[in-house]
């Protein structure tokens, strides 16, 4: 009898799946060398967009899937990050080493404020109160004429990395995005398998029991909420750089709903759920809109089929081996 793999014995542990994660990473790394053969920069931009949404959806999955907190206002943090980067770029700050941490910090601050109030409620009321705060920020962005109001803010530059690296170069931007998203995913993976992640998941399963054995439920959840906000802020800053444009519609409730749909589609509480959801959703959108102008109907039908056929998202189709 072989020894059971000690690192994988708990249901609260989440395997990264090196066997297919590494080849996938290698493929993504080589993508800029392949895209000139099939159509050029368009596919590189699409790939960068998918990566950024994968990051945003993964950050939402951290609180929604692993924390069990259905936040209906996650796009607000993406938008706050985007606006932070946009406003800094407009006022002449171009170093990405300032832009990204600033976006993460400001988003984390907003998440701390909103989370501190929202986490006092439960269930449907948590959904609605996070929605309420996100809508407030949306209308705030609409009304700040200094930064474009409802027209949004066009950005002249993407920022610089230093050392002669310009983010305006599509390849540089793509590789940078890939590096950041990979780092963020590794961070979430380590976080979930650490004591903090186990506690967060256990609180989702049984809040009262965790409280009783002495865990600070509110504190853990607030910390997770802030981390998710910061990661969403980073996604927002990258999205602003990619499109060269920031607009209030990034924070509208439909965007929060979209992120939620991606996570549910991929698999709530699966490490790769947010990534798979973002990739499948955006690729479906891209492919279907090539074939028919009524692509939303096909997209809706596909989503409905997933709901009826794969109750816990696409990742649930791959059964975990260690599960009894």
């Amino acid at each position, binding site marked *: 009898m072989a020894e059971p793999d000690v690192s994988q014995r708990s249901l609260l542990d989440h395997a990264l799946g090196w066997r297919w994660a590494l080849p996938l990473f290698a493929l993504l790394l080589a993508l800029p060398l392949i895209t000139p053969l099939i159509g050029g920069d368009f596919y590189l931009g699409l790939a960068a967009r998918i990566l950024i949404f994968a990051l945003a959806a993964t950050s939402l999955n951290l609180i*929604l899937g692993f924390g069990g907190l259905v936040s209906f206002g996650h796009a607000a943090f993406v938008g706050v990050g985007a606006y932070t980067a946009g406003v800094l770029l407009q006022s002449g700050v171009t170093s990405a080493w300032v832009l990204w941490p600033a976006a993460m910090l400001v988003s984390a601050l907003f998440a701390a404020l909103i989370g501190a109030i929202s986490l006092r409620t439960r269930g449907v009321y948590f959904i609605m109160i996070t929605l309420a705060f996100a809508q407030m920020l949306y209308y705030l962005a*609409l009304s700040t004429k200094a930064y474009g109001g409802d027209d949004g803010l066009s950005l002249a530059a993407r920022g610089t990395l230093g050392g002669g690296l310009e983010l305006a170069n599509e390849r540089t931007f793509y590789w940078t995005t890939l590096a950041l998203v990979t780092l963020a995913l590794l961070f979430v993976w380590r976080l979930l398998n650490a004591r903090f992640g186990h506690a967060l998941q256990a609180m989702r399963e049984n809040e009262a029991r965790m409280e009783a054995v002495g865990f600070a439920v509110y504190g853990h959840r607030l910390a997770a909420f802030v981390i998710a906000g910061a990661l969403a802020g980073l996604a927002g800053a990258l999205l602003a750089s990619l499109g060269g444009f920031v607009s209030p519609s990034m924070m509208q409730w439909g965007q929060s709903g979209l992120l*939620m749909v991606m996570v*549910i589609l991929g698999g709530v509480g699966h490490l790769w759920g947010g990534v798979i959801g973002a990739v499948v959703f955006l690729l479906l959108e891209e492919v279907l809109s090539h074939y028919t102008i009524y692509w939303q109907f096909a997209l809706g039908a596909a989503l409905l089929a997933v*709901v009826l056929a794969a109750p816990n998202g696409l990742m649930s189709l791959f059964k975990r081996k260690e599960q009894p």
Partner: protein
Amino acid sequence: MTGIFILEQALNGLQFGLMLFLLAAGLTLVFGIMDMINLAHGSLYMVGAYLVAAATTASGSFWIGLAAGVAGAALFGVLLELTVLRRLYTRDHLSQVLGTFAILLMCNEAVRFIWGSQPVLLSPPDSLSGPVELLSGFYYPAYRLLIIGVGLLVALGLWLLITRTRIGMQLRAGASNREMALAMGVPVRALFTALFGLGAALCAVAGGLLGPLLAVQVGMGESILILAFVVIVIGGIGSVRGALLGALLVGVVDTAGRALIPLLFGAVLGPAAADNAGPAVASILIYVLMAAVLFFKPRGLFPAHG
């Protein structure tokens, strides 16, 4: 002058609130009794408005169009329940969100396919197109008065249905304790289907009546859906009385905010600030209202569950 202005805004608020109530009533019952989050509720409102517009054009009469559109929307709601939604009742909230979001996308695209993406024109009946003199010197559009009248009638009918009939009793029993109602032999499946048809019909009434005031276009359901959710959370999920009060509160606060806040800002901060911040602050107002209600009454004004 200011008295008349306030009266006019109050009537506008009442009218908007009553229409919100028609949407929220169905939503709160579906949510409270079936424990189902239905994002496609706004689509029923949109489909209803389009059906009313199409039937009005075909028949030439607004009233026949309204009746036919409402009947068609009720049928659509029943079919939707029988084919798809009934499979989602036993699933968790997140699956319901994904499933009904899919239906929302499909409804939008189907409507765009049939009627095109241009807004469809729906005009009120000629006899009601003029204003009515309510007080000496105070004119109010007759059509808006009609909306208020119909809204009040429907609210009264709903109240009678829920408090005075057997079906209403079963609905209330289901809303306050679903398991117990099941155990006591309430015919749940048939009740749910009927409830969905009723909710769709109420949506179509609101869509058809608001059609001449707002644009009948793709996506009209999404913006009002969120307002309807705000209403039912303020009122307490599953409570029709709460939905009525919440809807009137949201309607009046929203209308008054849009009318008064730009004036207030204009007087205090100058016209530039009023133009910039006025509309945004007015839009934020109802969310502040919801946050405040949840702070003091975490389960809404009239919690339905025991």
